[in-house]
């Protein structure tokens, strides 16, 4: 160890201090949101950082006036459809790129991957027109179909499928399994942790979508939580903390999902990093 390295205690003190400061920065808006949501509307602007009054009325108002129940249901349906279909398409395409032989496989995979470089905003207008021409504005199809296949999911799963030894595929072939059977009986069970992580990523991304739903929904019944919150913010200007309460309602389900599945998330993020 070099002589000028600070002692271990100092280093960890500095590290934890830094982490604490960063955590405070991140948690501060969350804190103010919670405080505001739990205060009566007329007291929100007095001592905004001090929890000196408490009521659940604002949360109730946000739920009823903001129709958050309806939006929550819409968002849940959209997130579930996007996640489950994305898993299916990712598994199928990743399997094909890993285990099937077909001409120009590498080239096709390269093209597939290159779509990762195209930001959502670039395709927004074209996608909006396509959905419109299909008559899918204000529909679940419109909210979900553009997101049911991702190059990211294909790439992630292909990487883990590629780690399955070829002998295993051949052993399965000798045992009498075709591609479908091998995928179901061997490949999918072996990559389950990564599938969990991918599902969680998709769910989070879909849940937090704002731009796309705001572009293709004009009917109130088809709003998702995120677009619904915008309506809430603009409709009740005299109740500044209503939007805070709405935000909390929107965040609670995703928080629960995160807490329950955090193990999968971490495992998925590190998948492939260490040879297993």
């Amino acid at each position, binding site marked *: 160890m070099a002589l000028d390295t600070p002692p271990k205690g100092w280093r960890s003190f500095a590290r934890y201090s830094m982490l604490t400061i960063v955590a405070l920065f991140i948690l501060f808006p969350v804190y103010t949101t919670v405080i505001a949501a739990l205060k009566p509307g007329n007291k929100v602007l007095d001592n905004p950082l001090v929890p000196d009054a408490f009521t659940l009325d604002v949360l109730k108002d946000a739920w009823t006036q903001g129709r958050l129940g309806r939006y929550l249901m819409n968002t849940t349906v959209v997130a579930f459809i996007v996640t489950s279909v994305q898993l299916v398409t990712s598994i199928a395409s990743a399997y094909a790129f890993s285990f099937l032989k077909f001409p120009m496989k590498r080239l096709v995979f390269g093209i597939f991957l290159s779509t990762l470089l195209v930001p959502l905003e670039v395709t927004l207008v074209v996608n909006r027109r396509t959905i419109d021409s299909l008559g899918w504005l204000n529909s679940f199809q419109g909210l979900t179909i553009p997101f049911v296949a991702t190059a990211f999911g294909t790439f992630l799963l292909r990487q883990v499928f590629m780690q399955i030894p070829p*002998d*295993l595929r*051949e052993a399965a072939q*000798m045992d*009498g399994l075709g591609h479908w059977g091998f995928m179901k009986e061997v490949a999918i*069970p072996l990559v389950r942790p990564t599938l969990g992580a991918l599902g969680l990523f998709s769910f989070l991304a879909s849940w937090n979508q704002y731009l796309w739903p705001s572009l293709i929904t004009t009917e109130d019944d088809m709003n998702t939580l995120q677009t619904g919150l915008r309506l809430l913010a603009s409709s009740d200007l005299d109740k500044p903390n209503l939007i805070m309460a709405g935000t909390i309602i929107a965040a609670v389900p995703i928080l629960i999902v995160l807490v329950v599945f955090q193990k999968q998330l971490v495992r998925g993020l590190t998948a492939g990093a260490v040879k297993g």
Partner: protein
Amino acid sequence: MQYDSSVASIRLVGVSKHFGDVKAVDNVSLDIADRDFMILLGPSGCGKSTLLRTIAGLEDPTAGEVWIGDCMVNDVEPKDRDVSMVFQSYALYPHKSVQANIEFPLKVRGVNKAERAEAAKQAAEVLGLTPYLERRPGALSGGQRQRVALARAIVRQPAVFCMDEPLSNLDAKLRAETRAELVALHDRLNATFVYVTHDQVEAMTMGNRIAVMRDGIIEQVGSPKEVYDKPASVFVAQFIGTPPMNIFPAGSVEAADHVVGARPEHTHLTSSGVAATVALVEHLGHEIQVVCTIDAEHRAIVRIPAGTEVPGNGSSVFLTADENHRHRFNVKTGLRIS
């Protein structure tokens, strides 16, 4: 376990397998009789595994015919060939228990749960795996995993067992034990075994016939004794036997139109003969091996009993080959003359 295999002779007729410009297997014809323990032996890259995989159906031959019994199986899927395979890596399903691994081929074939459990139990019993049925492969030793792979192969009672260097991941002691177990298993199952190895000790001790391969072709097929006693070429002579056969330069022992070979046990240090220099003396306990250099291209090893006085490194010696145990090979082709 009562084995109920059908007649499973294998006939390869002019089989070739090319990967681009590489001829992994080149026009090989081979007959493997029903219930043979046939060893495909050769150095790395000689095409022995490719040939085995062609029999199993994991590779399609570029040319030629593969027959199992009375059926030409070129276009038959591996699962329908009545062949099972044991891989070098064992290829067990890591997420399934030992029992589920063993049962799996039967499950795929739609055998009901009770029957497959019974069959798996029997196979496990044959291979001493009963205490481990609930474990996952990850919790087993190399030898145990290897036995699970064997159990998975025998559970569906195939006519032919293909084995691709199944012992090469085991340590030396376990390998010797498992060799004997495999021979016993072959006797018990009375099935046809095709076994790939680069280890000539395995080949000599396990098989009843050996096909020695080199560069995609078969150099010799015969019983271990035939291959050892009458090697068909210089390559076979030097590949079979530890230490390998000594090959003397043409003209040094007999006439210059052929080369003479002699096993180390039939080569002697004498007062006249082929001049050589002692390069190394190895005391193995039960015997001494004297490694001699004849010229830049030729080396010879002499085995002498332990306790005999031996010349030191660098000494000049003379070598002779037993008159009755000489092997003669064509200088150009390397093929056996007598």
